[in-house]
Every structure is written in C-alpha cells, then in structure tokens.
C-alpha cells in the first residue's frame, strides 16, 4: 500500500527484509535520529514516496522524491542496556537513502 501519490521510484527494499540504518553524520535538518544510526532491523512496511525533508528544509525548488519505510527494531538491539522485555520493539520511519540491505 502506498500512502503518497508518487509512484516512482520503485522501492528497493521488501517487507521483512533485514536492513541497517547508515552510520554516518548529517548536516542540517534530517529526520533520521542519531540513536538509530548503525542499528539493524527489518522493513515493517513501505509507506510510499515522499519529498526529501533534508531538501524541503532548505527550500530546495525541486526536492528529490524518496521511498519511505517503517522499520522495526528489537529494543535490545538498539539499547545494549535495555531493561524491558526481550520482545519489546521500536518502530520508526527511515528514508531509503539512510538504509542499507545486509
């Protein structure tokens, strides 16, 4: 299911695929929180294609359209000292240019 009206580009990652969030720095406005960079999870769903917020934030005249995914992580994989249940999870949205297949 796509939530936006942009059909291109075709998403690279499939549901349930294992992914790693890129471990790198960013400049300016970005929607990939530091805490999730470098972490390994799975694609929960593809959300459709959206304009890159990093470019919208600087009033770019034609922001590139990028697939957005909801990704699921086990809390114990995100926080080494996580003290809740082993099955607890964390989900957030990551744009494709921040994801790597593993």
């Amino acid at each position, binding site marked *: *299911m796509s*939530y*936006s009206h942009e059909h291109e580009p075709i998403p690279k990652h499939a549901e349930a695929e294992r992914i790693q969030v890129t*471990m*790198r*720095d*960013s400049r*300016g*406005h*970005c*929607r*990939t*929180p*530091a*805490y*999730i*960079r470098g972490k390994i999870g799975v694609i929960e769903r593809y*959300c*459709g294609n*959206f304009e890159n*917020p990093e470019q*919208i*934030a*600087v*009033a770019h005249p034609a922001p590139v359209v990028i697939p*957005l995914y*909801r990704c699921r992580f086990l*809390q114990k994989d*995100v*926080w080494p000292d*996580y*003290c*809740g*249940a082993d*099955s*607890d*999870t*964390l*989900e*957030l*949205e*990551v*744009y494709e240019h921040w994801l790597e297949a593993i």
Partner: protein
Amino acid sequence: MEQDLKMGPHDVGGEDGDPIDTNDSGMTHWEKFSNGLRIAVSASKVVTLDELRCSAESFGDDYFKMPYFERNGLALVHRCLERQLFTDDELKAARESAEIRFNVPVIDLPNPESFTHLHDGEPHHDHENDFQEDEAGEGPPGYYFDMLAVADLLVDRGLITMASVQQKIEQFDNVFPARGIAVVAKAWSDPKFRDFLVRDAKNAIIDMGLQLESFADIICMPQSNDTHHMVVCTLCSCYPRSLLGMPPSWYKSRSYRSRVVHEPRAVLAEFGTIVPDNVEVRVHDSNADMRYLILPQRPKGTDDWSEADLGKLISRDHLVGVRVPEDVI
C-alpha cells in the same frame, strides 16, 4: 561515537531525562494565536514545516531554554527574515504598531455616569489590563508581539489571511480533539469499520466524512492482549493534530521525547500504566511523514453501549497509548 552523530539540541531520543509531569498545562490565548499562525503559514506552504523545524534546531543551547511556543514562534520569525518575506525594519515597525494597538482597549467604554450601578456607586477605574489578560491573569509574553507583527506582514503581502489563522485556532479548540474520539467509538461499535481503519486508516477516516487537514498519512495501531503501542516524536512534536488537537505539554517535553524510546515501561508506569512482561511494548517514533492513532481495546462491560456513550470513556491519553481505558464493571 553516538554523541558525534547527534544532529543538534532537538535530537534527544535515548537521553536520560527527568520524571514526566503527566499534567497538561493547556494553552494560553497567546500560545493559541502563535500556533494558529504557524499552522496557517505552513498549510499555505509560504514556509514549510521542515524549514520551521530547521530554524528551531539552529537555536543551539537556547532550544530547550525557550518554552515550546516561543521557540516555534521565533523559528517562524527567523525563517521569514531569511526568506526575505519582510525586512528587519519592517518587522520592527509592525511590532511597534502591534504593541500600540494592544495598549488601546478594544471596546469603547460608555460614559462612567451611565454605569456606576455596576460598581456600587463607585466610579469605574479603567485598568489597562481590562482586556489584556489570559485566563490566569497574565499578560502576553514578548514574542506574542512578534507573532502579531508576522501575521500583519504576511497578510499585507497576501500570503495568508487572518481568517485562516482564526480558523486554525477554532479547529484546534473545538473540532480536532473530538475527531479521534469519534473514530475510536465507531471502531468499537462497527467491526467492519474497525478492520478498514486498521488496514487503511486515512481512507477509513475520510469514508466517515472527516476531511483531515493534514499532509501526513495516518496509521492506526490496535492495542491487543499481545502488544501495547505507544507514540512519541523524539525530534520535535509530530502528532496527529487533525484527529487529536494539540499535543499535551508532556508530549512536547524533553523528558518524554528523550525517555520513551529507551525506557517505555518506566514512562508508562509514570502514567499509571503497568504492562505485563509477556506483552510486547511497541514504541512508534513518529519521526517523518506518518502519524499514529492508537486504537484502545473496547472496555469490558460496554456491550450494549451507544457510540456516544462509548465516546465518553475515551481520552486523548488512550489514543497516544500512555493510558488504557478502564473496564466498566
């Protein structure tokens, strides 16, 4: 290493934080105006929400020193100046004009002779504050005049209308908060609608006749005996406003934004919600283009209740996932 990746003062997910003040302090008149203006401006695409966030994020150490609405208001001022929608001098002049206008009582008082009966025969004293207080008796903060000035300047340039600002204030007060409750009450009453909502929330809600004034998409997460969902926005305060109204003060607080992603069960306990270990807690960081509506389980003991009565059991806190509605026994 992780410290190096922090994008700025706003990127707080995973930090330690204070206990959460679970009370909602509500909004003053000034805050409602600032919020209405910000939403009207971003809805008209004069300045985008991402630009406003970007400006706020550039405030450095001042980011968390300023109250939420002041921070967002000043971000709007900064971005409008940067985009050269008006100049510093124009802003200064508009601000002075707003201050002068504010100091004049907005209604003409009748001749004091004609209403001494209202004051037990005493002459009326025309206090400057007669028309300038909020519910708590406080006057406006300084940034409010910047907000009035920005509104005047953008209206002058034909970029927004004052009616659109007023409409946002009215919707946030009276329209948006009731919608999420109506959606959940319908889902509790109508299994087909519930399935539609969980599968495709945006269209299910549109199908109900609600037009959501939002660029974002809605995803509905149903609470179950196996999974407890809760929502946070670690980077700012993304929230399904057109379904729930304004986020409460705790949702925007540094502590909530920092702690939910790494100690959700401790945060839930502060709201009085204890989730057993055999139930998965699933945190949704609402960090991009989706917005989340949590669908609580229908309380036991309500089998023959009408949608209207069911609605009375539902509160905003249930729809963010920090509390669950109690069974009716």
